[in-house]
Each structure stands twice: as C-alpha cells, then as structure tokens.
C-alpha cells in the first residue's frame, strides 16, 4: 500500500467493520483497526476516559474480541477497495507473530504492530531497541505484507528504537502512541481512570508528536506515519513538514467525523497556493539536520 493520505488511527471507532466503513465514507484514505490480540480481552474497568487541559486521557486496556472472532469484521472490510491496516499486539514475539500470521490471511493491506500502548503490559516493548527488533523480526518472518512499527514517545531514546525497527525490516514507523498521563478528581481526591493512569491524546500532544516525527525522519530511511493530536489542516501541514508521509487521525474524530476530508481539502489548497505539485515536496521540508 502507498504510505500517503489521512488515515483513521487505531483505537478510535475501529472495533466493527460498520464504523470503519463509515469513516471511509467520510473521506479517510485508510483505516487502522483497533489493536487485536490472540485472545478476547475485556480491558480495564471504567472510567476509561478522562479529560485534562484540552486533551483526552484513555485507559481502555486493549479491549478486543481476539483475532479469530475479528475475522468476521475483516471479511466485510475486504469487500471495500480502501486499504485496511490491521493493528495487532502480543505478549511475546512468538504471540504477536501468531496474531499477525492469522491476520495476514484476512486480507489487510498492511500490519501495524502496537508495541507501545502506555496502559497495558505491552507498554515497555518499544522502550528497548533490542526487544522492538525481536518483535518486528518475528512478524516479518511470517508475513509478506508491509509491517509498520508503532512507537511510544515515552521512551528516552526513541530514535534508537526506530532504527532497531528499521534494521529488523519494518516498512514504516508510526509515531507516536499516546503519552502516559494521569487525572485526579479534586472533589473525590482520587484518580479518575479505572486503571489509575492512561494515555494522553488530542491537541496537547501535537508538539510532542512533531518533534518525534522530525527526529525519526532525519535518522531513518523508511517512511514515517505521523500521528498525535492532528486536528486541523494546519496541523497536518506541520506534521508533513516534520517528515510524515502519511498522517493518522484519532481523537479529532470525536468532534467531527468529516475531519479527514476537511484536512485533505485544506492541505491541497495550501499546496496549490504555495506552488507545490504534490505533498511529497513538503514531507520533511522543515529541515534535515541529524540531531
């Protein structure tokens, strides 16, 4: 699949084929499913959502029906011509390989590896270049599809993690997952989220995502798929300039499901006004130093 355009990010409206088709009809160029594991998983107790400083905190906890049960939804999606990226997770390289291999037979255009959900056991994978490499290698050995590694901004040295994923055969990097965060209710004097802490998304994490994408783009040769707080066409342009070839949108869907077509329209007008022939001309155009 071509790494371009504006995609539905994993975890938002991605549980059923019907909602993913709805976002496709609203102009998304591709959809990424909710992360699917080997077994059915209930996730965390509620509240799974909280808000703070204009951002959204979530601790859903990788709720999913398991890869076997998800086939029914994938079957419906297969009938569309639009690319579907299957997001998978696993507790070990062996387990994620099993899920990816099963999933690859369900007709997705690519596999995204969730190596970085900040409020589940798998959160630590993409903190380590060596462990990340093991996961990517295990999946690359069993599937012929493009494999994207989704990384965390919570790691100190995410560039080394990105390099490890690239060396292990990843076809693109998805950056960033949510930022580990917390909300305390001052009247009840207790954490709001059932899981105590969760992942922050939405506008407050946008500048964090821009920095990560910028640094990864400068250090790696594989494409970067930018995600994190993008909600307007101006954000999308900035993310492209930082180095994102494609952009995923999640939290902004909450306000308006038409966000994909609005962003696309805005970016196209920007490109035209500035005399650019295509978006490729602005990907990474903000700079090329290796810092």
């Amino acid at each position, binding site marked *: 699949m071509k790494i371009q355009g504006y995609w539905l990010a994993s975890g938002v409206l991605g549980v059923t084929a019907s909602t993913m088709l709805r976002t496709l009809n609203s102009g998304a160029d591709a959809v990424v499913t909710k992360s699917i594991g080997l077994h059915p998983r209930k996730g965390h*107790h509620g509240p799974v959502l909280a808000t703070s400083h*204009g951002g959204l905190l979530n601790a859903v906890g990788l709720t999913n029906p398991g890869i076997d049960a998800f086939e029914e939804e994938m079957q419906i999606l297969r009938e569309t011509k639009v690319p579907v990226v299957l997001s998978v997770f696993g507790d070990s390289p062996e387990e994620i390989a099993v899920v990816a291999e099963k999933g690859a037979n369900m007709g997705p255009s690519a596999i995204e590896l969730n190596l970085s959900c900040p409020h589940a056991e798998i959160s630590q994978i993409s903190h380590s270049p060596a462990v990340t490499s093991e996961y990517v290698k295990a999946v690359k050995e069993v599937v012929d599809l493009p494999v994207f590694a989704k990384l965390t901004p919570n790691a100190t040295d995410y560039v080394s993690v990105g390099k490890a994923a690239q060396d292990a055969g990843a076809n693109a990097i998805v950056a960033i997952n949510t930022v580990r965060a917390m909300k305390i209710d001052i009247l009840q004097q207790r954490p709001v989220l059932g899981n105590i802490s969760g992942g922050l998304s939405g506008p407050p994490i946008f500048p964090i995502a821009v920095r990560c994408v910028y640094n990864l783009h400068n250090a790696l040769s594989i494409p970067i798929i930018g995600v994190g707080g993008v909600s307007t066409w101006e954000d999308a342009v900035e993310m492209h300039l930082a180095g994102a070839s494609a952009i995923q949108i999640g939290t902004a869907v909450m306000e308006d499901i038409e966000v994909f077509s609005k962003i696309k329209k805005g970016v196209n007008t920007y490109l035209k006004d500035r005399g650019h022939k295509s978006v490729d001309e602005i990907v990474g155009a903000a700079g090329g130093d290796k810092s």
Partner: protein
Amino acid sequence: MKMEELMGNPVSVQVSKVITETPRSKTLQFALKNPIEFQPGQFVMVWVPGVDEIPMSISSWNPPEMGITVQSIGEATQALVSMSKGDWIGIRGPFGNPFSTNSKKALVVGGGVGVAPLRPLIYTLLDGGSEIIFVNAAKTKNELIYREEFERFRNPKFKVEIATDDGSLGFKGFATDAVSNLLDGNEFDRMYTCGPEVMMAGLYDHAKKGKIRFQASLERFMKCGCGICGTCAMDPTGQLVCADGPVFTGEQLAKLTNFGKYHRDAVGMKKEC
C-alpha cells in the same frame, strides 16, 4: 477542540436522595451546579468510584436535581443501589439524541427498568398537550417501577395500563400482547418504547403494521458515551447508540440488521439479544 464539552463536562457530585422503587431498584438524585440542556431520552455516564463507569438514562430533571433509576444487574449497578445520601459519583453528559415529542396521541410502552427514560417523556408530552396511554410492563408486580407514582398521578389525558408476565397485576402476559389488544379500538400517531430489545422488536412490528410512527431507546455496551470508542456500533450503518441514538426511529431501525437480533459484549463478540 472543546474537549471538556465533547466529554460531557465531567463533574463529581454527592447523592442527595435515594428513593426505593422496587426491591431491586432505586432512584438516586443529585444536584448539578452547572446548567445543562436536557431532553427526554438522553443519558449520562455515571462514574461509580472504584468500580466502573456506566451509561444511565436520566429519569428526572428538576433543575438542579437530576435523577437516575438503577436496577441492580451487575457490579456497577449493585454498587449504585447500595449508595446512601452523601456518597460521591461522577456524572458527564447528557449525551445522545432525545425522543421527538411531536405527538397528539401517544402509546408509551416501558418494560422493566426501561420505563426510566420514559418518565420525563410522559411529563413532557402531557405538558405539550398530548394524550397518552402508558403501558407499564414487568415480569411481576414487585418489579413494576413508578407504579405508585403513576397510580396517584391524575390527568384526564393520561391512562396507565399494567402488564405482568405472571399476571400478578393487570394484564397477564407480555407487553407486546397487551399492546396488541390496545391497538384494537385505539388510534395512536406515535409509539415510544424502552425495555428489553426483543419486546421492542415485537412492538416495532406492531407499529409497522398499524402505520404508527415509532421510536425506541436502545441499549448497547458502552465505554466512552461520546462517540469515540465505537463499542456501541450498530450494523451495517456504523451508527453509534451513544451519539446517533440511543433513540432511533422506525425508519432508522428498519436499516439496522442487529436490532432485536444481537449485541456485542464487553470484548466485542456478538451475542444474541
């Protein structure tokens, strides 16, 4: 983005009053300091500290006092019915599309705790001059919610019919059969319902046959309440019960393949209704 607003302006409140409705259900009241816009059929997400967060229909709104009527079914509802005055809960909302209250003669049918969102609907309809027959249905007499309230309530335009599956009070049998009898000899321009989905699907068939405009309040497993997680999606349209519902019209229901058939459980697996 106005995240607070999209999330339903979360606020913690203390329970101000607990009313026992039936042996298994209670109404909790609490005051909301900030003004809200409420229309019958809408719901709130209720944070039960240390347990979970669940959607609950708003069963009364007398500003600033809001009420929710809870039947003990699972862990979170059990914790709610065990609460006393002064206990803390979190509230966000109201969410969802309300009932349309444009009716001259309405048939309102509630099954079990499904009568909760219908209570404010009934009072709003009466305020607007509608004539109403209300079928209050439950498995047995002891599970009829608001029975005394509506027995005491006198209004020439309002009539209540009781139906119990076991015949312990009123009509003996299912709500659908009680409604079938009522449709002989009565003209209605709208039918409103909330309750077990199999009952609502049966009522929808009656309404379709009788060419009565239909609205039902649906329930699905819900995590966010505000249109982002996708857990409560209906097939094949991808409409969300939290954001596009919970009230759906007959025309909308006709396009949904899972209405009265299946729902998805906590992990997203299909289960029969």
